[in-house]
Protein backbone atom coordinates (compact mmCIF):
# COMPACT_ATOMS: atom_id res chain seq x y z
CA UNK A 1 0.00 0.00 0.00
CA UNK A 2 1.34 3.42 -0.91
CA UNK A 3 1.49 6.15 1.72
CA UNK A 4 -0.17 9.08 -0.01
CA UNK A 5 0.35 11.83 2.60
CA UNK A 6 3.77 12.91 1.28
CA UNK A 7 2.51 12.91 -2.28
CA UNK A 8 -0.54 14.93 -1.31
CA UNK A 9 1.87 17.56 -0.02
CA UNK A 10 3.60 17.59 -3.42
CA UNK A 11 0.28 18.02 -5.23
CA UNK A 12 -0.70 20.88 -2.92
CA UNK A 13 2.60 22.65 -3.64
CA UNK A 14 1.77 22.27 -7.31
CA UNK A 15 -1.68 23.72 -6.71
CA UNK A 16 -0.04 26.75 -5.11
CA UNK A 17 2.14 27.30 -8.21
CA UNK A 18 -0.92 26.93 -10.46
CA UNK A 19 -2.87 29.48 -8.40
CA UNK A 20 0.09 31.89 -8.41
CA UNK A 21 0.43 31.57 -12.20
CA UNK A 22 -3.30 32.08 -12.69
CA UNK A 23 -3.37 35.21 -10.52
CA UNK A 24 -0.25 36.81 -12.02
CA UNK A 25 -1.27 35.85 -15.54
CA UNK A 26 -4.74 37.31 -15.00
CA UNK A 27 -3.33 40.63 -13.79
CA UNK A 28 -1.09 40.91 -16.87
CA UNK A 29 -3.98 39.80 -19.11
CA UNK A 30 -6.28 42.43 -17.60
CA UNK A 31 -3.73 45.20 -18.18
CA UNK A 32 -3.06 44.07 -21.76
CA UNK A 33 -6.80 43.69 -22.43
CA UNK A 34 -7.53 47.30 -21.52
CA UNK A 35 -4.43 48.66 -23.28
CA UNK A 36 -5.09 46.77 -26.53
CA UNK A 37 -8.90 46.91 -26.36
CA UNK A 38 -8.97 50.68 -25.92
CA UNK A 39 -6.03 50.96 -28.32
CA UNK A 40 -8.16 49.47 -31.08
CA UNK A 41 -10.66 52.30 -30.53
CA UNK A 42 -8.00 55.00 -30.58
CA UNK A 43 -8.17 58.07 -32.82
CA UNK A 44 -4.60 57.46 -34.00
CA UNK A 45 -3.95 55.01 -36.80
CA UNK A 46 -0.57 53.91 -35.40
CA UNK A 47 -2.06 52.93 -32.04
CA UNK A 48 -4.94 51.09 -33.73
CA UNK A 49 -2.54 49.21 -36.02
CA UNK A 50 -0.25 48.25 -33.13
CA UNK A 51 -3.17 46.95 -31.04
CA UNK A 52 -4.57 44.99 -33.99
CA UNK A 53 -1.22 43.37 -34.74
CA UNK A 54 -0.79 42.38 -31.09
CA UNK A 55 -4.30 40.88 -30.89
CA UNK A 56 -4.15 39.00 -34.21
CA UNK A 57 -0.66 37.69 -33.53
CA UNK A 58 -1.42 36.29 -30.11
CA UNK A 59 -4.80 34.91 -31.10
CA UNK A 60 -3.39 33.42 -34.28
CA UNK A 61 -0.53 31.39 -32.83
CA UNK A 62 -1.15 28.93 -30.06
CA UNK A 63 -0.30 29.46 -26.40
CA UNK A 64 1.93 26.43 -26.54
CA UNK A 65 4.10 27.86 -29.31
CA UNK A 66 4.24 31.25 -27.58
CA UNK A 67 5.38 29.65 -24.34
CA UNK A 68 8.10 27.67 -26.08
CA UNK A 69 9.16 30.74 -27.97
CA UNK A 70 9.38 32.79 -24.76
CA UNK A 71 11.33 30.06 -22.99
CA UNK A 72 13.67 28.79 -25.72
CA UNK A 73 14.07 31.59 -28.27
CA UNK A 74 14.02 34.77 -26.15
CA UNK A 75 17.18 33.75 -24.21
CA UNK A 76 18.99 33.46 -27.56
CA UNK A 77 17.96 37.05 -28.29
CA UNK A 78 19.35 38.15 -24.93
CA UNK A 79 16.29 37.97 -22.64
CA UNK A 80 16.88 35.34 -19.99
CA UNK A 81 13.59 34.35 -18.37
CA UNK A 82 12.85 31.96 -15.52
CA UNK A 83 10.14 29.38 -16.30
CA UNK A 84 7.72 31.30 -14.06
CA UNK A 85 8.38 34.60 -15.87
CA UNK A 86 8.05 32.93 -19.26
CA UNK A 87 4.81 31.28 -18.13
CA UNK A 88 3.24 34.48 -16.80
CA UNK A 89 4.36 36.41 -19.88
CA UNK A 90 2.96 33.91 -22.39
CA UNK A 91 -0.28 33.29 -20.49
CA UNK A 92 -0.90 36.98 -19.80
CA UNK A 93 -0.18 38.13 -23.35
CA UNK A 94 -2.20 35.30 -24.91
CA UNK A 95 -5.33 35.62 -22.78
CA UNK A 96 -4.95 39.42 -22.83
CA UNK A 97 -5.37 39.35 -26.60
CA UNK A 98 -8.65 37.44 -26.30
CA UNK A 99 -9.86 39.69 -23.49
CA UNK A 100 -8.94 42.80 -25.51
CA UNK A 101 -11.68 41.90 -27.98
CA UNK A 102 -14.09 41.62 -25.06
CA UNK A 103 -13.13 45.12 -23.90
CA UNK A 104 -13.59 46.52 -27.41
CA UNK A 105 -16.95 44.81 -27.86
CA UNK A 106 -18.25 45.98 -24.49
CA UNK A 107 -17.17 49.60 -25.03
CA UNK A 108 -18.75 49.60 -28.49
CA UNK A 109 -21.98 48.16 -27.12
CA UNK A 110 -22.55 51.28 -24.99
CA UNK A 111 -25.25 53.39 -26.62
CA UNK A 112 -24.53 56.49 -28.63
CA UNK A 113 -26.62 58.63 -26.28
CA UNK A 114 -24.07 58.00 -23.49
CA UNK A 115 -21.33 59.56 -25.62
CA UNK A 116 -23.62 62.44 -26.53
CA UNK A 117 -24.37 62.97 -22.84
CA UNK A 118 -20.61 63.11 -22.17
CA UNK A 119 -20.24 65.80 -24.81
CA UNK A 120 -23.24 67.67 -23.40
CA UNK A 121 -21.65 67.61 -19.92
CA UNK A 122 -18.42 68.92 -21.42
CA UNK A 123 -16.41 65.86 -20.35
CA UNK A 124 -13.12 65.22 -22.10
CA UNK A 125 -12.54 61.96 -24.00
CA UNK A 126 -10.68 60.39 -21.10
CA UNK A 127 -13.08 61.73 -18.45
CA UNK A 128 -16.07 60.37 -20.35
CA UNK A 129 -14.37 57.01 -20.74
CA UNK A 130 -13.36 56.84 -17.08
CA UNK A 131 -16.58 58.01 -15.42
CA UNK A 132 -19.37 57.16 -17.87
CA UNK A 133 -18.48 54.52 -20.46
CA UNK A 134 -16.14 52.10 -18.65
CA UNK A 135 -18.21 51.65 -15.46
CA UNK A 136 -21.13 50.53 -17.64
CA UNK A 137 -19.01 48.50 -20.08
CA UNK A 138 -17.14 46.74 -17.28
CA UNK A 139 -20.33 45.01 -16.16
CA UNK A 140 -20.82 43.60 -19.66
CA UNK A 141 -17.20 42.42 -19.73
CA UNK A 142 -17.29 40.60 -16.38
CA UNK A 143 -18.94 37.27 -17.34
CA UNK A 144 -16.64 36.85 -20.35
CA UNK A 145 -13.63 37.85 -18.25
CA UNK A 146 -14.62 35.01 -15.92
CA UNK A 147 -14.57 32.57 -18.82
CA UNK A 148 -11.22 33.96 -19.95
CA UNK A 149 -9.80 33.46 -16.45
CA UNK A 150 -10.94 29.82 -16.56
CA UNK A 151 -9.27 29.42 -19.96
CA UNK A 152 -6.11 30.88 -18.40
CA UNK A 153 -6.31 28.45 -15.49
CA UNK A 154 -6.61 25.57 -17.93
CA UNK A 155 -3.73 26.90 -20.02
CA UNK A 156 -1.43 26.95 -16.96
CA UNK A 157 -1.15 23.16 -17.28
CA UNK A 158 0.99 23.75 -20.37
CA UNK A 159 3.78 25.35 -18.30
CA UNK A 160 4.53 21.90 -16.84
CA UNK A 161 6.18 21.21 -20.21
CA UNK A 162 8.82 23.90 -19.58
CA UNK A 163 9.62 22.25 -16.24
CA UNK A 164 7.64 24.57 -13.97
CA UNK A 165 6.40 22.55 -10.98
CA UNK A 166 2.66 23.17 -11.29
CA UNK A 167 -0.20 20.73 -10.61
CA UNK A 168 0.25 18.80 -13.85
CA UNK A 169 4.01 18.56 -13.37
CA UNK A 170 3.65 17.27 -9.79
CA UNK A 171 1.09 14.70 -10.96
CA UNK A 172 3.69 13.43 -13.42
CA UNK A 173 6.25 13.28 -10.60
CA UNK A 174 3.86 11.27 -8.44
CA UNK A 175 3.10 9.01 -11.39
CA UNK A 176 6.82 8.40 -11.96
CA UNK A 177 7.49 7.65 -8.29
CA UNK A 178 4.49 5.47 -7.46
CA UNK A 179 3.65 3.94 -10.82
CA UNK A 180 0.02 4.71 -10.06
CA UNK A 181 -1.66 6.79 -12.79
CA UNK A 182 -5.31 6.97 -11.78
CA UNK A 183 -4.94 8.61 -8.35
CA UNK A 184 -2.67 11.58 -9.24
CA UNK A 185 -4.46 12.47 -12.46
CA UNK A 186 -7.96 12.07 -11.01
CA UNK A 187 -6.91 14.23 -8.03
CA UNK A 188 -5.60 17.09 -10.12
CA UNK A 189 -8.62 16.95 -12.44
CA UNK A 190 -10.84 17.48 -9.39
CA UNK A 191 -8.59 20.31 -8.12
CA UNK A 192 -8.64 22.07 -11.51
CA UNK A 193 -12.41 21.74 -11.65
CA UNK A 194 -12.78 23.11 -8.11
CA UNK A 195 -10.59 26.11 -9.01
CA UNK A 196 -12.65 26.73 -12.17
CA UNK A 197 -15.86 26.62 -10.12
CA UNK A 198 -14.29 29.06 -7.65
CA UNK A 199 -13.50 31.52 -10.47
CA UNK A 200 -16.99 31.31 -11.95
CA UNK A 201 -18.55 31.74 -8.49
CA UNK A 202 -16.25 34.71 -7.84
CA UNK A 203 -17.16 36.52 -11.05
CA UNK A 204 -20.87 35.87 -10.47
CA UNK A 205 -20.80 37.41 -7.00
CA UNK A 206 -18.66 40.33 -8.20
CA UNK A 207 -21.20 40.91 -10.97
CA UNK A 208 -24.07 40.90 -8.47
CA UNK A 209 -22.19 43.37 -6.26
CA UNK A 210 -21.36 45.76 -9.07
CA UNK A 211 -24.83 45.73 -10.61
CA UNK A 212 -26.46 46.57 -7.25
CA UNK A 213 -28.45 49.78 -7.59
CA UNK A 214 -28.35 49.62 -11.37
CA UNK A 215 -31.67 47.77 -11.73
CA UNK A 216 -33.87 49.46 -14.24
CA UNK A 217 -31.01 51.67 -15.44
CA UNK A 218 -29.59 48.91 -17.61
CA UNK A 219 -31.57 46.84 -20.05
Amino acid sequence: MIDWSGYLDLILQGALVTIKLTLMGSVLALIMAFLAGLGRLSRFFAVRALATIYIEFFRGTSIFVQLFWAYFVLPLLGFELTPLQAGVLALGLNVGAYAAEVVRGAVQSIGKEQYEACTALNLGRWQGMRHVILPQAFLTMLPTFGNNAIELLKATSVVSLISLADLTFQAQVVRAQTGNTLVPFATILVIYFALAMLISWGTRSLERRLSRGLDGVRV
Partner: protein
Amino acid sequence: MEWDWAFVREIMPTLLEGVKITILATILGSALAAVLGLGIALLRRSPNRIVSRTVGFLAEFIRGTPLLVQLYFIFYVLPDFGLLLPPLTAGVIGLGLHYGTYAAEVYRAGIDNVPRGQWEAAKACNLSAGQTWTHIILPQALPPMIPALANYFIAMFKETPLLSAITVLELMNQAKSVANTYYRYIEPITLVGAFFLVISLFSVVLLRWLERRYGKVER
Protein backbone atom coordinates in the same frame (compact mmCIF):
# COMPACT_ATOMS: atom_id res chain seq x y z
CA MET B 1 22.46 33.80 -32.78
CA GLU B 2 21.79 34.39 -36.48
CA TRP B 3 18.83 33.31 -38.54
CA ASP B 4 20.07 30.65 -40.99
CA TRP B 5 18.06 30.14 -44.19
CA ALA B 6 20.06 27.06 -45.25
CA PHE B 7 19.06 25.41 -41.98
CA VAL B 8 15.43 26.39 -42.60
CA ARG B 9 15.51 24.66 -46.01
CA GLU B 10 17.07 21.60 -44.44
CA ILE B 11 14.43 21.14 -41.74
CA MET B 12 11.42 22.12 -43.88
CA PRO B 13 10.52 18.57 -45.07
CA THR B 14 10.50 17.28 -41.46
CA LEU B 15 8.26 20.13 -40.34
CA LEU B 16 5.89 19.58 -43.27
CA GLU B 17 5.52 15.95 -42.12
CA GLY B 18 4.44 17.38 -38.78
CA VAL B 19 1.97 19.78 -40.43
CA LYS B 20 0.28 16.80 -42.09
CA ILE B 21 -0.28 15.06 -38.74
CA THR B 22 -1.44 18.34 -37.17
CA ILE B 23 -4.06 18.84 -39.89
CA LEU B 24 -5.12 15.18 -39.76
CA ALA B 25 -5.59 15.39 -35.97
CA THR B 26 -7.62 18.61 -36.35
CA ILE B 27 -9.93 17.13 -39.01
CA LEU B 28 -10.54 13.87 -37.13
CA GLY B 29 -10.92 15.75 -33.84
CA SER B 30 -13.42 18.17 -35.40
CA ALA B 31 -15.51 15.35 -36.84
CA LEU B 32 -15.59 13.61 -33.46
CA ALA B 33 -16.39 16.86 -31.64
CA ALA B 34 -19.24 17.64 -34.05
CA VAL B 35 -20.86 14.24 -33.46
CA LEU B 36 -20.19 14.11 -29.70
CA GLY B 37 -21.40 17.68 -29.29
CA LEU B 38 -24.74 16.84 -30.91
CA GLY B 39 -25.02 13.74 -28.71
CA ILE B 40 -24.32 15.74 -25.55
CA ALA B 41 -26.74 18.51 -26.57
CA LEU B 42 -29.53 15.99 -27.24
CA LEU B 43 -28.88 14.01 -24.04
CA ARG B 44 -28.98 17.22 -21.99
CA ARG B 45 -32.52 17.77 -23.30
CA SER B 46 -33.54 14.27 -22.27
CA PRO B 47 -36.79 14.17 -20.28
CA ASN B 48 -35.05 11.75 -17.87
CA ARG B 49 -33.66 14.01 -15.11
CA ILE B 50 -30.88 11.59 -14.14
CA VAL B 51 -29.57 11.37 -17.74
CA SER B 52 -29.69 15.11 -18.42
CA ARG B 53 -28.13 16.06 -15.06
CA THR B 54 -25.32 13.50 -15.32
CA VAL B 55 -24.43 14.43 -18.89
CA GLY B 56 -24.64 18.13 -17.97
CA PHE B 57 -22.25 17.69 -15.05
CA LEU B 58 -19.78 15.60 -17.05
CA ALA B 59 -19.72 18.19 -19.85
CA GLU B 60 -19.18 20.96 -17.30
CA PHE B 61 -16.36 18.95 -15.72
CA ILE B 62 -14.61 18.34 -19.03
CA ARG B 63 -14.92 22.01 -19.93
CA GLY B 64 -13.50 23.11 -16.56
CA THR B 65 -10.33 21.00 -16.66
CA PRO B 66 -7.24 21.35 -18.88
CA LEU B 67 -7.03 19.46 -22.15
CA LEU B 68 -3.42 18.47 -21.38
CA VAL B 69 -4.44 16.63 -18.21
CA GLN B 70 -7.30 14.93 -20.06
CA LEU B 71 -4.83 13.77 -22.70
CA TYR B 72 -2.56 12.37 -20.00
CA PHE B 73 -5.58 10.68 -18.46
CA ILE B 74 -6.58 9.01 -21.72
CA PHE B 75 -3.03 8.07 -22.63
CA TYR B 76 -1.65 6.96 -19.26
CA VAL B 77 -4.62 5.95 -17.09
CA LEU B 78 -6.81 4.03 -19.54
CA PRO B 79 -4.10 1.38 -20.24
CA ASP B 80 -4.41 0.40 -16.54
CA PHE B 81 -7.98 -0.58 -17.34
CA GLY B 82 -6.87 -2.58 -20.37
CA LEU B 83 -7.48 0.09 -23.02
CA LEU B 84 -4.17 0.80 -24.73
CA LEU B 85 -4.57 3.47 -27.40
CA PRO B 86 -2.04 4.58 -30.01
CA PRO B 87 -0.93 8.20 -29.37
CA LEU B 88 -2.78 9.73 -32.33
CA THR B 89 -6.03 7.94 -31.46
CA ALA B 90 -5.75 9.04 -27.83
CA GLY B 91 -5.07 12.61 -29.01
CA VAL B 92 -8.04 12.67 -31.38
CA ILE B 93 -10.34 11.30 -28.67
CA GLY B 94 -9.06 13.92 -26.23
CA LEU B 95 -9.53 16.80 -28.69
CA GLY B 96 -12.95 15.49 -29.77
CA LEU B 97 -14.17 15.04 -26.21
CA HIS B 98 -12.91 18.43 -25.00
CA TYR B 99 -14.24 20.44 -27.92
CA GLY B 100 -17.38 18.28 -28.09
CA THR B 101 -18.48 19.89 -24.83
CA TYR B 102 -17.96 23.34 -26.35
CA ALA B 103 -19.77 22.30 -29.53
CA ALA B 104 -22.65 21.04 -27.36
CA GLU B 105 -23.22 24.62 -26.15
CA VAL B 106 -23.32 25.83 -29.76
CA TYR B 107 -25.87 23.14 -30.64
CA ARG B 108 -27.93 24.00 -27.57
CA ALA B 109 -28.09 27.67 -28.55
CA GLY B 110 -28.91 26.75 -32.15
CA ILE B 111 -31.71 24.38 -31.14
CA ASP B 112 -33.12 26.92 -28.67
CA ASN B 113 -33.24 29.47 -31.48
CA VAL B 114 -35.70 27.40 -33.53
CA PRO B 115 -39.08 29.08 -32.91
CA ARG B 116 -41.63 27.27 -30.76
CA GLY B 117 -44.10 27.35 -33.62
CA GLN B 118 -41.97 24.86 -35.54
CA TRP B 119 -42.25 22.32 -32.72
CA GLU B 120 -45.97 22.87 -32.51
CA ALA B 121 -46.39 22.59 -36.28
CA ALA B 122 -44.43 19.31 -36.26
CA LYS B 123 -46.73 18.00 -33.54
CA ALA B 124 -49.79 19.19 -35.49
CA CYS B 125 -48.52 17.30 -38.56
CA ASN B 126 -48.35 14.16 -36.39
CA LEU B 127 -44.59 13.71 -36.83
CA SER B 128 -42.79 11.41 -34.41
CA ALA B 129 -39.98 12.74 -32.21
CA GLY B 130 -37.33 11.31 -34.56
CA GLN B 131 -39.01 12.78 -37.63
CA THR B 132 -39.37 16.16 -35.93
CA TRP B 133 -35.63 16.27 -35.19
CA THR B 134 -34.37 15.06 -38.56
CA HIS B 135 -36.84 16.86 -40.84
CA ILE B 136 -37.85 20.03 -38.98
CA ILE B 137 -35.56 21.12 -36.15
CA LEU B 138 -32.01 20.16 -37.17
CA PRO B 139 -32.22 21.38 -40.82
CA GLN B 140 -33.16 24.82 -39.46
CA ALA B 141 -30.87 24.80 -36.45
CA LEU B 142 -27.65 23.57 -38.09
CA PRO B 143 -26.74 26.19 -40.77
CA PRO B 144 -26.63 29.20 -38.38
CA MET B 145 -24.31 27.21 -36.08
CA ILE B 146 -21.68 26.58 -38.72
CA PRO B 147 -19.62 29.75 -38.11
CA ALA B 148 -19.59 29.25 -34.33
CA LEU B 149 -18.59 25.61 -34.74
CA ALA B 150 -15.84 26.55 -37.22
CA ASN B 151 -14.56 29.04 -34.64
CA TYR B 152 -14.08 26.24 -32.11
CA PHE B 153 -12.43 24.02 -34.69
CA ILE B 154 -9.88 26.75 -35.36
CA ALA B 155 -9.31 26.95 -31.60
CA MET B 156 -8.82 23.19 -31.59
CA PHE B 157 -6.27 23.48 -34.35
CA LYS B 158 -4.28 25.82 -32.16
CA GLU B 159 -4.38 23.33 -29.27
CA THR B 160 -2.98 20.43 -31.31
CA PRO B 161 0.64 21.13 -30.17
CA LEU B 162 -0.47 19.65 -26.83
CA LEU B 163 -0.52 16.26 -28.55
CA SER B 164 3.28 16.39 -28.58
CA ALA B 165 3.11 15.78 -24.82
CA ILE B 166 1.65 12.32 -25.48
CA THR B 167 4.30 11.58 -28.12
CA VAL B 168 2.24 12.27 -31.26
CA LEU B 169 4.72 13.33 -33.95
CA GLU B 170 2.90 16.49 -35.00
CA LEU B 171 4.40 19.84 -35.97
CA MET B 172 5.53 20.90 -32.48
CA ASN B 173 7.11 17.54 -31.70
CA GLN B 174 8.97 17.45 -35.02
CA ALA B 175 10.26 20.96 -34.34
CA LYS B 176 11.39 20.00 -30.85
CA SER B 177 13.19 16.90 -32.06
CA VAL B 178 14.89 18.90 -34.82
CA ALA B 179 15.86 21.56 -32.27
CA ASN B 180 17.27 18.96 -29.89
CA THR B 181 19.26 17.26 -32.64
CA TYR B 182 20.92 20.41 -33.99
CA TYR B 183 20.82 22.50 -30.80
CA ARG B 184 19.17 25.34 -32.69
CA TYR B 185 15.84 26.51 -31.29
CA ILE B 186 15.34 29.83 -33.01
CA GLU B 187 14.39 28.56 -36.50
CA PRO B 188 12.23 25.50 -35.68
CA ILE B 189 10.15 27.16 -32.92
CA THR B 190 9.74 30.40 -34.90
CA LEU B 191 8.69 28.42 -37.98
CA VAL B 192 6.08 26.53 -35.96
CA GLY B 193 4.69 29.91 -34.88
CA ALA B 194 4.74 31.13 -38.49
CA PHE B 195 2.91 28.00 -39.71
CA PHE B 196 0.21 28.46 -37.11
CA LEU B 197 -0.14 32.16 -37.84
CA VAL B 198 -0.46 31.60 -41.60
CA ILE B 199 -3.00 28.78 -41.28
CA SER B 200 -4.96 30.75 -38.67
CA LEU B 201 -5.10 33.85 -40.86
CA PHE B 202 -6.38 31.74 -43.75
CA SER B 203 -8.98 30.14 -41.54
CA VAL B 204 -10.15 33.58 -40.39
CA VAL B 205 -10.86 34.43 -44.04
CA LEU B 206 -12.74 31.12 -44.38
CA LEU B 207 -14.66 31.91 -41.21
CA ARG B 208 -15.76 35.33 -42.54
CA TRP B 209 -17.01 33.59 -45.69
CA LEU B 210 -18.91 31.00 -43.65
CA GLU B 211 -20.47 33.81 -41.60
CA ARG B 212 -21.70 35.54 -44.74
CA ARG B 213 -22.92 32.30 -46.27
CA TYR B 214 -24.63 30.66 -43.25
CA GLY B 215 -24.63 33.14 -40.39
CA LYS B 216 -27.80 34.99 -41.34
CA VAL B 217 -31.04 33.30 -40.42
CA GLU B 218 -33.69 33.49 -43.09
CA ARG B 219 -37.10 33.90 -41.58
